[in-house]
């Protein structure tokens, strides 16, 4: 009888306490997914009143499609991973984080990752990576530091399709490499006030011509470059996201070739594009308790110990000052030169996506023309001019 009473008290206690359940949609598979699951478990242990329903939605495009549909149906999850150009699609559905997440946490985020959408703070960085250079140390003892060296070394290795040898590699669906070249040449897609298209000015042309010259010696394929490595193709060096590190290393191991990481070669500056998603909280169809619980989860995930755990397990970059300059991370990268390269690359010139509300459409045409450029379908100048005209029509629509 006594036990029963205790049980009743416990059950009543839990019910009275009010269990809050929030849903978290993500696209983290494999080791990344395991690390996230671990962190969520830890969060739930620390916050017994909150249950996080962690939902893996498949790859990024599946996640995007599901979020689009969920927002349209008025049933989004409480919190989800998302790219900047998705966020702009449903900005009004998101919660202003500065109302729920403590100022201390938000101001700790590295400026490279800071994002203001239409004057609002609606996202925090989560799984962020940056473009770095992967190279074969057996073919390239000293990785290139400048565009000129890069081009020279790529040409030296050349291209032999029969033997499967390529100086470098590019993926048409990944125009971020072009944007890195563009930024390094001092160019931009739009002028600062977003009123003018500047992608086809002198700097843009320099970047496009550079890419076109490299493309002559490049493997050009839609699939990840690690697939090609795993199959046994020889690629001298290529620019790829730091998030691909475990996949590229594994592919090299399978193929039995060495692989190393270096900073992206520089031109007028050493800019490199940041990739990866952010976290945002949806306000639609959520209770205040759910939003507060999700805000708590964001604060938890941005705590130094958790960021460092996440970064070590996944290869993503630490996103706060406290974490990146903290003892734990600094000691870690002292022993991991390649992680140090990625950290340095971020601090040296990490830049993020254009937060224009039409960037989704802009990126789509970037992909189209980046492919034309890589395949040498026309002169870089003509391609850039046509691209600029399309971007112009998108932003004036």
């Amino acid at each position: 009888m006594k036990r029963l009473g205790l049980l009743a008290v416990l059950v009543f206690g839990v019910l009275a306490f009010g269990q809050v359940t929030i849903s978290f949609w993500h696209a983290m598979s494999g080791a990344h997914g395991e690390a996230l699951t671990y962190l969520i478990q830890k969060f739930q242990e620390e916050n017994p009143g909150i249950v996080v329903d962690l939902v893996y939605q498949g790859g990024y495009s599946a996640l995007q499609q599901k979020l689009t549909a969920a927002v349209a149906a008025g049933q989004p999850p409480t919190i989800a991973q998302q790219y900047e150009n998705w966020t702009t699609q449903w900005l009004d559905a998101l919660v202003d984080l500065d109302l729920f997440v403590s100022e201390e946490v938000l101001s700790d985020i590295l400026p490279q990752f800071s994002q203001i959408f239409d004057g609002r703070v609606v996202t925090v960085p989560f799984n962020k990576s940056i473009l770095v250079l992967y190279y074969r140390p057996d073919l390239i003892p000293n990785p290139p530091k400048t565009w000129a060296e890069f081009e020279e070394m790529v040409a030296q290795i050349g291209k032999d399709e029969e033997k499967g040898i390529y100086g470098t590699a590019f993926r048409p669906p990944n125009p971020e490499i072009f944007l890195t070249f563009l930024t390094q040449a001092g160019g931009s897609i739009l002028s600062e006030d977003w009123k003018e298209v500047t992608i086809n000015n002198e700097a843009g042309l320099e970047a496009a011509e550079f890419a076109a010259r490299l493309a002559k010696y490049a493997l050009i394929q839609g699939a990840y470059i690690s697939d090609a490595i795993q199959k046994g193709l020889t690629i001298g060096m290529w620019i790829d996201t730091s998030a691909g590190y475990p996949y590229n290393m594994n592919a090299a191991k399978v193929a039995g070739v060495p692989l190393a990481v270096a900073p992206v070669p520089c031109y007028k500056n050493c800019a490199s594009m940041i990739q990866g998603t952010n976290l945002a909280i949806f306000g639609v169809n959520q209770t205040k308790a759910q939003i507060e619980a999700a805000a708590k989860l964001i604060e938890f995930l941005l705590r130094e110990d958790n960021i460092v755990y996440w970064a070590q397990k996944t290869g993503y970059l630490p996103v706060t000052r406290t974490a990146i300059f903290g003892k734990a991370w600094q000691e870690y990268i002292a022993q991991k030169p390649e992680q140090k390269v990625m950290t340095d690359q971020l601090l040296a010139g990490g830049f993020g996506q254009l937060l224009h509300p039409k960037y989704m459409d802009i990126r789509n045409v970037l992909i189209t023309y980046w492919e034309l450029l890589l395949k040498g379908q026309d002169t870089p100048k003509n391609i850039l001019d046509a691209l600029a005209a399309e971007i112009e029509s998108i932003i004036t629509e």
Partner: protein
Amino acid sequence: MSIPRHLKSKKFWTETFEAYVYLFPTLLILGLFTFYPFINAFVYSAYDIRTRTVPGPVVYTRDEDIDSWISLLRRGRIPEELASALEKRGAGTDLWVRLRQTDRWVIKEEQTNQEYIVVKEGEVINVYQAKTQWALTPVGWGNFRQVLSDPDFAKALKNTAIYVGVSVPTTLFLALLIATLLNQAVFGRPIFRLVNFLPYITPVVAITMVWQWIYDKNFGLLNYVLSSVAGLFGAKIALLDWLNDARLVLPALIIMNVWRFLGYQALILLAGMQGIDREYYEAARVDGASGFQVWRRITLPLLTPQIFFVFIISMIGAFKIFEEVLILLQGPGPQKSGLTIVYYVFTKAFDSGHYGLASAASVILFAIIFLLSLFQLTVVQRRVHYER
């Protein structure tokens, strides 16, 4: 007026009721996932559809202002302070007011249906009250005009037409050939029939994954076979990059799907062949017809109902090609060389959220299929011999 006898019988009604009970689950599913979306696609195609999220309170005012604002608004005027606050939020000037909740004034913009809630200054924004709203603006033929002038749609249309135009006749011709062969008393016929049919019952995802490897440039089976065959004749051919070369993407899709649907079509044709009365053949033999003559003059004409059925079904199926593109190419393919109409619809709806445009494109696809089917049912069917 007399009621037909069978309608009076109780048995008729109980049986009808029973039938509908059994049919109900199917009708429900069909209604929900086929008929309802089908009709809605037509409706949506005439609207610019956007989902917009109505946030919680967004316009601030000093406490005492609200009432005077509202009375101004009711008289069709917008208070200056409110106008500038709304402008910051991107609202136009075409506003009207309605009371929504207990003590909140909701201002609605006529054009966009966007709602703004007026709250007291200093009140925390209650974003958790946000709701998704569908805004349907009638645009008449606007969506159709936009789709038809979209170069991507033109490309999708062209790709789909080529795909249908090549794959449907090719599959049918090969299926006819295989059915004819299987119709002979060859050794191990059941095994051939099974092997032939397997691709059809294998999930398309599994098939496509396998073909992804077959089409690999450096290590794929197809290039290996091609270069080996060329090697036999002492020739050397360049490796074909099936999935990354814009010229080869459509052929790759066609080859895969010809192979995939061959067995199914051959099986139907074979069944048709075996249903042809032996007497015709015997009569032909007596008259001294050769094997090919028999096939040409007897098998083929008497098989026209099956050929017609297979043709029309496979044509409709071919127009709807989608999963293969999504999985084999992981996108629309290099330079959109694999962009098909359904893939276009898919990206318009689920990547960019232009539901109106997607609906218009799907209505156009429906019209194409409908007209072609109508043509076949009226013109081509005259040449089909149903008499036995």
